[in-house]
């Protein structure tokens, strides 16, 4: 069973429907016991980091997320979920995250009036290393992005994929051990995104520690 963490940050319908399309049993839940009992955990989200951190703390989920990652089970962050597991975000005047990934999250500040914020649409991901979640997905494949802030790990070992937008090259996918996180939305990225989620459902992280 896949637990999709619900913390009132955006619409989880497309995440649920993507797992449904794969025939995988997935539950949207804010219950720490369900999350810790699940075989795999997805931490999605859309919205503002400040409000999301407050809600996570109120629901008692920050410790649950730390425990789920520490337990070694496959864990996938998506979009705001990814940003929140970094140490710090510039959003909402500065917010401390859960701190599972070293580094911070910064605002796009484009020099061109034609680079819009948020970045909205399909952009390519350059794969810097082989990762089980990217199996069968060609380098430079496009994924769907919607975001105003971007993650920058302080340790480049974490970077699986990079993407260019608005004068910066940011980390669109990071991973280490049983933790993987994407800035893009695999659940809205067509067949290629569905392949990533299918890979996630098969992923046995012990095999991928070799990075």
């Amino acid at each position, binding site marked *: 069973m896949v637990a999709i963490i619900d913390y009132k940050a955006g619409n989880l*319908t497309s995440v649920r*429907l993507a797992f449904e399309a794969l025939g995988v049993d997935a539950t949207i839940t804010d219950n720490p016991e369900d999350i810790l009992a699940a075989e795999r955990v997805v931490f999605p989200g859309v919205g503002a980091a400040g409000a999301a951190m407050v809600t996570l703390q109120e629901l008692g989920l920050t410790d649950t997320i730390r425990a789920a990652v520490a337990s070694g089970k496959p864990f996938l962050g998506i979009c705001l979920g990814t940003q929140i597991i970094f140490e710090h975000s510039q959003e909402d005047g500065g917010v401390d995250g859960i701190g599972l990934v070293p580094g911070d999250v910064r605002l796009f500040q484009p020099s061109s009036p*034609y680079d819009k*914020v948020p970045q909205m649409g*399909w952009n390519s991901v350059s794969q810097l290393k082989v990762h089980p979640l990217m199996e069968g997905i060609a380098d430079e*494949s496009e994924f769907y992005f919607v975001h105003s802030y971007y993650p920058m790990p302080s340790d480049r070992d974490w970077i699986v994929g990079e993407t260019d937008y608005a004068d910066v090259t940011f980390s669109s996918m990071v991973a280490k051990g049983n933790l993987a996180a994407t800035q893009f939305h695999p659940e*809205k*990225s067509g*067949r290629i995104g569905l392949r990533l989620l299918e890979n996630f459902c098969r992923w046995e992280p012990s095999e991928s520690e070799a990075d």
Partner: protein
Amino acid sequence: MLTRRIIPCLDVRNKIVTKGVKFQNNVDLGDPVEMAQRYSDEGCDELVFYDITASAEGRPIDIVMVEEVARAIRIPFSVGGGISTVEDMSRALLAGAEKVSVNSLAVKNPAIIAEGAKAFGSQCIVLGMDPVAVDDAAKCPCGYEITTRGFREHTGIDALEWAKKAVDLGIGEIVVNSVDADGTREGFEIELTRMIAENVPVPVVASGGAGTPGHLVEVFEQAHADAAIIAGMIHTGDYTIPQIKEDLVRAGVPVRKKW
């Protein structure tokens, strides 16, 4: 590089996709779910559905259709028509739509934009606007006036002023649908699209007038649109999405190539 989005528009009436010129002489084209699936398989980047009779009939958008589309495709789609309250927005988003679009209603009640953006985030609230070229510089200095209710009502509102106000209220994207170009298949209204794109910080989607792949090249290169809506040119079978994308690639416009 961020690619330019190609967005087929499906106008839906009584659960059937239809196409008219300036909201008239509509012809039935097919089932919305089947067409969404087909265009998604062909590589469109996003879809937009307008429930074109919902507002006139005073009913909310067809949620069953939204749910069926959401099950059938794995790419983002937006819905409009019959979205008049935050509850309507909530129902459409929870049914699986990525974004909801407001148009006439937002002109009448601009607060709906702020309410929607606060409740769900700016990124899922889209403003549809239907500007028409006018000569009255005193009334509309930008040269375009906002119309509502399927072009039937002139509002006296300046299109550029309205776009900026909507951004201040929290809109996340603007669809600029030229009344003069709509359904003509003679090309997008470049000047109008560029004026909006240059003056707002959010993505701008060009709409109205797409007839050939060359028209899309123009609107991306000259008007700096982030996305373009197409309808008749693919609904009639004159062009396919892969053909359009091939022409865009040849012209050097970045598009999504793998799906």
